[in-house]
């Protein structure tokens, strides 16, 4: 949403035309970053000027997966981990639809990891907004493949001992053409990134590092959502084009954000426009 132009007389929050208002208030906790990410997404949709009837949102199970229930577009709340194959099915059978996958780290990279890798390999034209709160929040705070080493969760009561996934590296290695990471605090840059990811033909991933005030930050004594936002403010550093192998997130250490991958690759049927049209069989 453009702050200076479209905001003269409004009767409500500018996001309200795109929200299912009968389901508000939503279920997310105080200080959760998902509402903020949803705000940034709607701001991006407004900027893109895309046909709303041709825009679909697919989300999986989890806290972020609830986005499908609140956004007023054709939205699909599918099974755990299967948002990406479901979106693949939509996109392949109706290439004129714009499909956005909006789901969490556990949903997309753990149980959905296989599908994530293959969609990136196929370079199918999807925009993936991956909200990473480093934990399985909806089910009560269990360890996730993105949880940093030594962090406490309910199923790592003595500290997580497994090395976590590095999502930008995974996405790049599997073949994604656009990979960016921002935190929930970098809302303007996140909006811009979502716009770019949407416009990019091919598999585009935007990772959003988001506070989880009820579980991740509480179980690790890091305060509430606002304290995590302050942490992101102080400890995130923007490094566009940084090699993805340097993008590990260590527990309570620096977070590198920015746009890391923006390239061209041949794509499966279903990509809209772009030089990859020649790659079709």
């Amino acid at each position, binding site marked *: 949403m453009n702050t200076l132009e479209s905001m003269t007389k409004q009767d409500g929050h500018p996001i309200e035309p795109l929200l299912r208002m009968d389901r508000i208030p939503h279920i997310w906790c105080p200080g959760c970053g998902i509402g903020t990410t949803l*705000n940034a997404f709607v701001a991006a949709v407004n900027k893109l000027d895309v046909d709303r009837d041709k825009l679909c949102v697919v989300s999986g199970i989890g806290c972020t997966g609830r986005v499908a229930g609140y956004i007023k577009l054709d939205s699909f709340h599918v099974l755990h981990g299967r948002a990406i194959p479901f979106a693949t099915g939509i996109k392949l059978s109706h290439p004129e639809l714009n499909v956005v996958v909006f789901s969490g780290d556990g949903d997309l990279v753990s149980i959905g990891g296989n599908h994530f890798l293959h969609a990136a390999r196929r370079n199918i034209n999807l925009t993936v907004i991956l909200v990473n709160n480093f934990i399985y929040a909806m089910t009560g705070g269990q360890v996730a493949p993105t949880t940093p080493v030594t962090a406490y969760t309910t199923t790592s009561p003595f500290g997580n001992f497994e090395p976590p996934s590095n999502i930008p590296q995974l996405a790049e290695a599997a073949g994604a053409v656009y990979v960016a990471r921002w935190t929930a605090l970098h*809302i*303007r840059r996140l909006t811009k990134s979502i716009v770019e990811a949407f416009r990019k033909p091919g598999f585009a991933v935007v990772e959003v590092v988001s506070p989880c005030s009820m579980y991740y930050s509480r179980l690790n004594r890091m305060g509430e959502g606002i304290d995590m*936002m*302050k942490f992101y403010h102080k400890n995130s550093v923007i490094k566009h084009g940084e090699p993805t192998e340097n993008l590990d997130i260590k527990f309570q250490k620096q977070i590198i954000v920015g746009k890391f991958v923006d390239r061209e690759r041949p794509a499966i049927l279903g990509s809209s426009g772009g030089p990859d049209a020649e790659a079709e069989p």
Partner: protein
Amino acid sequence: MSLVRTPYDIKKIKVPRGEVHIVKERCKGCGFCIEYCPNGVLALSDEYNEKGYHPPKVVSPEKCLSCALCEVLCPDFAIWITLQGEVEAKIGG
């Protein structure tokens, strides 16, 4: 003598002014808007809303620049800004 020089094109600069709208019942007291308002327009109020949280209150309405950072940061869609026109820029305000 002021140490800040008045820019020559100050008459051409127009500073937007915004009006803050808060839906108190939606607020969950996270504090994002208060913390990240660049001009300190908001502060935590002492009153309670229905859910028992302290919503923000506008303490310096004349300083709102309509940047709408609070609007995009709020996870509960409880605060937004409407543009109230523009005023002339002046030093220190």
